[in-house]
Every structure is written in C-alpha cells, then in structure tokens.
C-alpha cells in the first residue's frame, strides 16, 4: 500500500456520464422545480429508472447465484482487492448533486431504505423486498422513517410502536413519522417501501427499537403532510401516519428479541447504517459546493477577477481571499469524505471519520454557498441565477443525517473515548 488519491479510470469515465445526465436532465429543470415545489422531475426520473432498475437486477441476480452456489455474498470484494463500490457511489452522488440536489434526492431507488435492508436484512428479505426495484416500467422509490415530532436527534425517544399480533402473525404499527425523504413517492406514487423505526418495548429504551418494512398499499398507512421547505424543494419530504398498520411478521429487519444488554446491539446495528449514509450526504454537499464555487469563479473571470495560486496573502484582494478560502474548505471536506468512503470500501470501521466528513462537508458547503451569494452581489441574490438556490439547498447538509452538533458530539465521544453517559 501507498498513499494515493488516484481516482480509478473507470470511475472517472462514469463521472463523465453522470455529468452528462446532470447537464441534460437536472440543470435545465433546477430553477422551475424549485419555483414549483412538489412537481416531479419527470425527465430525470425517466432517464434514471431503467439504469437503476437494471443495476438493481444485476445485484439481485448475483445474490441469487451466490445463494444457490457457494453461499458467499455477491458484493464482497475478491480477496486482496479493495472494492471501489462506495468510491463510485461517492463520485456519482457528488456529480448528481452538482446537477441539482433536490432532483438527485428524487432518484427512483431503494435509497436509505435499501441501505437498511442491505445492512441488516437476510438474503431472503433482500430478494423479496428489493425485487420491486429491479423490474417494470414504472419507477419505484424507497425511504427511511426515523424522525418523529418529539424525537429528532434523540432517536431513542421515539414513540411509534410495533406490537406483535400472534393470532394473525403480523406486526401492528401505530404512530407518526416526519421529514421522510421520498415518503410520498414511495407509498403513494409508486409500489415502494419505507423502513420504519418503532419500539417493541418502550421500557427497554434503545434496546426496544427495531426497524420494519412497510410496503405501499398497506392499510392504515397514510401520508399526513408534504413539507414546504427552505431548499431542496424538488425533493419530496413527507410525514406518514400509521393507524393500526399491519405488516407481515417477516417484515422486521434483524432480530425481534429485545436484548437488555447495555450495548443494545440491535439499535447499534441500525445506527451503523449512518456510517455509510453520512459520507454520502457529505458527497452530496460537496456537489453543491463545487457547483457554487465553479459558478463564482466563472462569473468573476468574466468580470476580470482571476484567482491566483502562490501569491502572498498581502497581495490578494478580499474577493480572491474569499474564493481561496472557499476552495481550501471544499478540498479539505472532499478529502475527509474520500477517506471515510475509502474506509467503507476497505471494510474498516469508520464511525469517527464518517461524522468528521459529514460535519466538515455540511459546514464547508454552507459557508461556500453563502459566500457565493455575497460575492455575486445583486446577481447572487437574484433568482435569475442559481446561486441563491444553492445557498438554500446547501443548508440541509448541516441538518439531515445528524445535525452538525450531533456529528460534533459523535466525533467528541470518539476522540475522548467517552460513552453517551459520560458525554451527553
């Protein structure tokens, strides 16, 4: 091994393809979808569905083969070779978010719901539940429902319940979930599914929290509200109400048993999906940051301001200093994200690095996008250009998948070797 930042050729080529998608079905629609909230990015969805469907089909076929053959998971890297799966994903997400983050979030895919199934589902569950993402002409969405009105960063305070009905062999879910990305798309506008976190035993605290798969068409499930937002307006953010919603016994992910140990492995396992999702949120943030930075540099160049490298600080103008600072912040966020992604590909434990990347990227891109509006003056604030929209879009990266403060808390606990009791 040797330290290297070389992005493999095939991933660079793939990025070029994704860039073409971003330029053809994202950027041209970015403004109008922002202005007309809750309209769907049809061109993008139509373009992406066949690609993602066929990818999902290939993944499931591999899994099926492995199941029939050696029993090895099809996704594992061959011995001695490090996977580049997450690296490829990072570059895709970055480029799609460069195109438009709100539209990217409408990707017809299993999304975070799929990540949860991948992480803790059995092979049989994967084959059964993910098949809908691998067939048909109609796009399908997946989603993840964790947050509740009274349980935000403190997931363990959630009050949605799942009670097992032995007579019918079903779980019965009651409660309300909010801020669910693509919730309406998954349950009302397609034959999708939502992963719902609920407690099977409130007294057990974290140990009682389990995740369940709720499929579209389940009686007792309804969309409560579709949010109107500051940014990422093209993205569907819904609340879901569960009123005696009954799902099959086998739609629980992981064990149904409540382990009363201190570690509460079930909850920890569920939290582990964040180790993979946070670096990807960071990657998405990087895309907006790059979009804003490139645009600012282009407009400044048109107005005669070039950005020099190597000039002493005292010879730089205030604008040049700002842009260099934006650029350095973005690069540091990129490298921290790349590291956390690389660890996933290497199968290393990356909770600390994932939170570092998410924290840095969320903060950096918020700063960069706000600076972009400032530097572009009257045009930066105008809805004629996209800078003001990028600023509104950027802010979500400091909030979802754990606010900056929660990620800071996680980093702090890790570097200090503290438990949640020692550092609350």
């Amino acid at each position, binding site marked *: 091994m040797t330290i290297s930042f070389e992005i493999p050729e095939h991933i660079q080529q793939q990025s070029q393809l994704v860039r073409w998608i971003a330029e053809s079905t994202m950027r041209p629609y970015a403004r109008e979808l922002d202005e007309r909230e809750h309209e769907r990015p049809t061109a993008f969805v139509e373009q992406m569905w066949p690609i993602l469907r066929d990818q999902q089909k290939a993944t499931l076929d591999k899994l099926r083969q492995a199941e029939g053959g050696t029993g090895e998971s099809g996704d594992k890297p061959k011995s001695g070779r490090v996977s580049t799966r997450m690296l490829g994903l990072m570059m895709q997400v970055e480029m799609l978010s460069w195109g438009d983050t709100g539209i990217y979030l409408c990707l017809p895919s299993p999304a975070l719901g799929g990540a949860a199934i991948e992480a803790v589902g059995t092979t049989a569950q994967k084959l059964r539940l993910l098949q809908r993402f691998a067939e048909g002409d109609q796009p399908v969405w997946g989603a993840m429902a964790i947050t509740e009105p009274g349980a935000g960063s403190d997931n363990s305070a959630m009050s949605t319940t799942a009670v097992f009905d032995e007579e019918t062999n079903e779980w019965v879910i009651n409660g309300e979930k909010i801020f669910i990305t693509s919730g309406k798309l998954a349950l009302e506008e397609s034959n999708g599914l939502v992963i719902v976190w609920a407690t099977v035993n409130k007294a057990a605290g974290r140990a009682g929290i389990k995740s369940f798969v709720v499929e579209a068409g389940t009686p007792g499930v309804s969309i409560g509200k579709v949010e109107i937002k500051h940014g990422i307006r093209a993205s569907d953010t819904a609340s879901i109400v569960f009123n005696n919603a009954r799902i099959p016994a086998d739609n629980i992910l992981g064990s149904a048993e409540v382990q009363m140990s201190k570690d509460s492995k079930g909850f920890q396992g569920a939290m582990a999906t964040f180790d993979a999702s946070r670096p990807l949120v960071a990657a998405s943030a990087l895309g907006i940051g790059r979009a804003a930075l490139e645009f600012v540099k282009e407009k400044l160049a048109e107005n005669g301001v070039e950005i020099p490298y190597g000039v002493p600080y005292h010879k730089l103008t205030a604008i040049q200093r700002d842009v260099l600072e934006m650029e350095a912040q973005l690069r540091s966020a990129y490298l921290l994200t790349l590291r956390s992604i690389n660890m996933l590909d290497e199968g290393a434990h990356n909770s600390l690095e994932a939170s570092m990347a998410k924290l840095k990227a969320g903060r950096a891109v918020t700063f960069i996008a706000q600076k972009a509006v400032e530097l572009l003056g009257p045009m930066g604030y105008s809805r004629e250009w996209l800078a003001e929209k990028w600023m509104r879009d950027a802010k979500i990266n400091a909030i979802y998948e754990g606010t900056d403060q929660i990620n800071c808390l996680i*980093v702090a606990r890790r570097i200090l070797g503290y438990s949640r009791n020692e550092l609350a």
Partner: protein
Amino acid sequence: MVSFTPTEDQQLLISTINRYATNDVRKVAHEADESELIPANVIETGWQMGLVPSAIPEELGGLGELSAMTGVLAAEELAFGDLSVALQVLSPALMAYPVVLYGTAEQREKLLPLFLEEAITPATAALLEPGVFFDPYELKTTATTSGGTIQLNGVKAYVPLAETAEWMLVYAKDSESGRVDGYVVARNAAGVMIEKREALMGLRAMPTYRVQFNGVTVDETARLGGAVGIDYAAILNRQRVALAALAVGVGRASFEYARDYAKQRVQFGKPIAQNQAIAFMLAEMAVEIDGARLMAWEAAWKLDKGEDATREAYLAKQYADQMVVKVTDSGVQTLGGYGFIREYPAERWLRNGRGFTTFDGLAIV
C-alpha cells in the same frame, strides 16, 4: 487507486521518528525553548535517523529516496516532537534537496557527499527578506553577472543556523532577466556578514539570523543548475507542503495534550472534557488537523507524481496556517490558566504555530 495507508517503510519511519519525538525531543523541548539552545546530542540523534541522507542519489552513496510524501510524514512526526528541533534536523535539506533536484552533475558530485557525514551537515538556505511585505516572487536580493562572475547584493532574514553554516543556498533575482535562482555561497566568502541572532516570539530554540550580502562574488558554477537554473516555483511548492506538514505536527501535539488534560482536569465534580463546550472544541481541533493533513498529503502525492502541485500546495499551506493557529489557541484555552504558564507546553505550541504564515523558506520536502 485511492489509499490512505503509508508504505511499510514509511510506517516504520513514522514509528522511529515518533519514538525520537517522544523520548528524546519532548524531554528537552521546554528547556531548549527557555535557554534558546537544543542539546547537540538530540540534534545528532535526529540527524542519524538519516532522513536527509536517504534522499541523496544512490550513485553518490545515498538511498535515492527523495519523496515528498515520505518528507511530509516525517515532518509531521518531527514537529509533533518540537518545531525548533524539526527545523534544525531538517535544515541541511534546504540546500541538499534543491541540489538533488536541480544541481548540475558537477554540483551534485561536489556538494551531495557532504550530506552523508555522521555529523549534521552545516548547510542552510537564505530566502526570506526583512520587512512587512515579503513576496518570494519579488526578491530584493540581486544577482548581477559580469565577465564570468556573479555579484550578490541584499539582505536576508530568518536564515537558519547561518552562524554555524559552512554553505548557504542564497536565492536572488537576476538583475537583468528578473529570474530567481539559487547560488551556492560559502559562509566565509568576502561580503557575507552575519548579523546578530534574531529574537522571535516562537522557534526560540532554533537559531536564525539576518544576513547581509554585500557584493559577494561567486563564479558562474555557483548558480544551481548552471545555465538551466532551478524550477523556483516548484521549490516554493515543496516548501509550502513541508510547512503545512510541520503545522499539522504542531497542531496534533497541542490537540493531544489538550485532550488528555481535559480528561484529567476535574471541575464541578467531573472532568472538563465532559462539558460540550470543551468536548466540541476538541472535536473541531481533530477535524481541522485531519483536514489539513490530508491536504498536505494530496499535494505531496502530486509532487511525487511530477505534476504541477501549485494549487494543492498553496491551498494546503493556507489551510494549515489557519488550522494551526486555531488549534494551538484552543489548546491554550483548554488548559485555562495553565495554558498561559510556560511550564506547560500549550503556550509554546501557540507561539510556534502563529509563525507559520511567516515561515517561508524554512523547510523543504
């Protein structure tokens, strides 16, 4: 292929330097700072780890391993021990590396064996100039050629170890072409005047001097790289990357000390690290240090590939400059009153950290 794992040789080197930094350097750092003198045996031990000699080409007796990445890893670890010691142990590189990179065959054969000696080579470089606004591209020191000889005129500042150096690489601007080149000057050449040692806020154990060059005459063989000269911009890039890595080492030293202190210091019945105000400050320090380190690594990686690393090196330096001030300031803050007391190392790291925006030309990879 992306990887964040150093080679086995580099890992071995890091742990060797870490032992030196922990066992030898840290023990003398405070006293060295106070007395403005590093014990000679500590410098010799550092030199004998062979960082600079290993970069000398094989045909001249070295290992031929001039690698910016290895240099960056070594620099961080040395500075983790102490910045003054790091700069002193590495100071011969200020001359050796440019000679390796740009020297003519004759210059290499003549000069490079000097860096294979048991004792640290008395060689340095003079780049920085006095005044508020220093611009490495607008050097005031001039080189004037006439009739086969070159005359150097000007004043340099922050010249490391000038008093004891036998050789200096002096950067000067050609008075006709405006080109910057490096000139190898003997310390005892006529017209070289070493002024008194500079008194600085930090780096107190590292002797630096203001040096006058009053019509110092050298022949044309003194110009590094002969008629071709040097790639000055590339040298500046290597210096920026080296300084960024050193800043990371200083930042990490301050962070680790503050982290350990905060876990031990009890107020209101619990360790202060259990307060978010302290814990979050430490978390920010950790993130910024890692971010700066990765930027230095990326720039070094580009240098080793032989690509233009101007942008990466500049941004890495700029980022590290800010990081080290913020981190070392937080280090002092974490210690509260003790942070201000010189018996504790935190204030020394802040004084040393504050200098990075000034330290052009003091280190190279």
